[in-house]
């Protein structure tokens, strides 16, 4: 194997340096990598993901598929790189993961897939729209955009105030959009103003995330040139992608699919494409980020 290849992605073992609750039912997991793994993972892009062996490294024994998680942050620290994922505890894989402790070694394939295309123009504007477990890649994206000094607003969908308080969007309640006050932990960390949309208005904007976006765009016409970056439940992505198409906005969506390998060899993660004849792309290899127009909604 030559260096160049290793540097693109690989199978790496890292040590868990932090593992703690993140809202109710979610955990934040931070893994530290050294050496070639550190160099490789440091190059991860927002929208890329990792395939995690959800049990102690070395004793997977081939009985369980890996589980895919979006990268929610990457931090360099000298010769090591820390990678964060934020995951919802939902089934056997994530339960096993939740049982792992700081100090444990963990095995990942990383970084995988094609991430978001970042704007080249420093005057670009970016709309970051996340719902549920679609938020973590937005945190990473917000970070990167902040580093590049690109204008950005975060949107988070929530059903109601309980969800907001207990769920992944954490303590955030923002009256005044664009005021980066006590907004969502991660958005806040990158100084990204954020808007919460709740169906019942019990928290933030009353309405769904698309309505919040429409309101925002109405109030800030200069943002109509912005690019949308979205990740979340399919109905939300569909609504956003169709809206973007209607107003001729660029819209990059980060999709999910049931994966086995995550590295493009098993054809598990097919996603149907828009257009006449039935055709598919692979979420793990061609995605998970697609142009909203590409997908058959």
């Amino acid at each position, binding site marked *: *194997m030559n260096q160049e*290849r*290793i540097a*693109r*992605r*690989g*199978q790496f073992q890292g040590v868990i340096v932090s593992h703690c609750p993140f809202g109710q039912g979610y955990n934040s997991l931070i893994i530290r990598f050294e050496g070639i793994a550190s160099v490789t993972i440091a190059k991860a892009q927002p929208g890329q993901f990792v395939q995690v*062996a959800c049990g102690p490294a070395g004793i*997977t*024994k*081939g*009985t*369980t*598929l*890996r589980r895919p998680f979006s990268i929610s942050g990457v931090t360099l620290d000298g010769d090591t790189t820390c990678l964060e994922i934020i995951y919802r505890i939902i089934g056997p894989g994530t339960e096993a993961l939740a049982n792992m402790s700081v100090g444990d070694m963990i*095995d990942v*394939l990383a970084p995988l897939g094609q991430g978001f295309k970042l704007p080249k123009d420093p005057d670009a504007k970016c709309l970051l729209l996340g719902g549920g477990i679609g938020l973590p890649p937005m945190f990473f994206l917000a970070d990167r955009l902040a580093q590049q000094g690109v204008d950005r607003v975060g949107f988070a969908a929530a059903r109601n105030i309980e969800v907001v308080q207990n769920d992944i969007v954490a303590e955030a309640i923002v009256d005044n959009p664009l005021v980066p006050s006590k907004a969502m932990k991660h958005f806040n960390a990158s100084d990204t103003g954020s808007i919460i949309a709740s169906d019942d208005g019990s928290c933030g904007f009353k309405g769904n995330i698309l309505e919040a976006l429409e309101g925002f765009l109405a109030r800030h016409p200069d943002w109509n040139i912005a690019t949308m970056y979205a990740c979340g439940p399919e109905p939300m992505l569909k609504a956003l992608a169709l809206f973007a198409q209607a107003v001729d906005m660029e819209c990059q969506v980060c999709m999910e*699919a*049931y*994966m*086995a*390998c995550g*590295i*493009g*060899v*098993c*054809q*598990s*993660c*097919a*996603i*149907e494409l828009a257009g006449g004849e*039935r*055709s*598919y792309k692979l979420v793990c290899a061609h995605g998970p980020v697609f142009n909203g127009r590409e997908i058959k909604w």
Partner: protein
Amino acid sequence: MTDKNVDLGVQFGPLKLANPIMTASGTCGYAFELRDFVDMDRLGAYITKSITLEPRMGNKPQRTYEVASGMMNAIGLANVGLDKFIEEKIPLLEKMNVPVIVNVAGKEVPEYVKVAKEVSAQDCVAGLELNVSCPNVKEGGISFGTDPKLIQELVGSVRQACPDTFLIVKLTPNVTDITVPARAAIDAGANALSLINTFMGLAIDAEKRKPILANRTGGVSGPAVKPMALHMVNRVYNEVAKDAGIPILGMGGITNATDAIEFILAGATGISVGTNVLINPGCLNEIEVGLKEYLIRHHETKLSDLIGKLK
């Protein structure tokens, strides 16, 4: 004894392989997809995904599902089709430093023959693996692999079209007596047998009351099927292959070197890893190291001495 003194080499039909480890069709891409995770040069041979005459989109998703100690798949032979394979993948395969075996599938005999002929004509192709487990359209969807007459017709036709090609026939385990298709394949000219392909299974979502895979049924693979696979390899070895001098490529649930040794003791000359590559791609190289360690621990020098040595 050191590393240097142990020899993992096996004679797999006409191919002298540096070690018995091969990729399993459908789990390791068309060429170099795994290179970031696996040192491809350390494989015994590389086996491609199944190629069909026409490109195939594959089944609707959901296509795979995790089951106890294994997985189910109903990929539906999604592949780029013969033309694109020749055009795009053969140039990549030409760069491989290990023998390349191309897996061929189809729905009717002429389709197999056409693909086999074109593919085997490529210089970089060391052999073909015929996947006879796909449903046969003419015979009402029953699988070639379950009917010895169809196997004979299929393998015979391919053999006639490609008289000098190293031909491996991959058998389905969904049969009453695996020695019957094994014999049929050999009689029709197979040079080697691959076993096993996947077991037919069904997974149900109890909440939604519907099958989990869009295709309803799927093939079960992984450690869950290892005992059945070992049994079939051992039966075919003892009852058919040993006397016929036909090597077996054993697979089904292999995850580590101990599993590989078990298949070799049962009668396999080569071994393939499928499901576990999806989980731990690095295992393809780890198994090579483990096989050496086993030989050293057992004061053996040649892995090939162990083939079929189950007491």
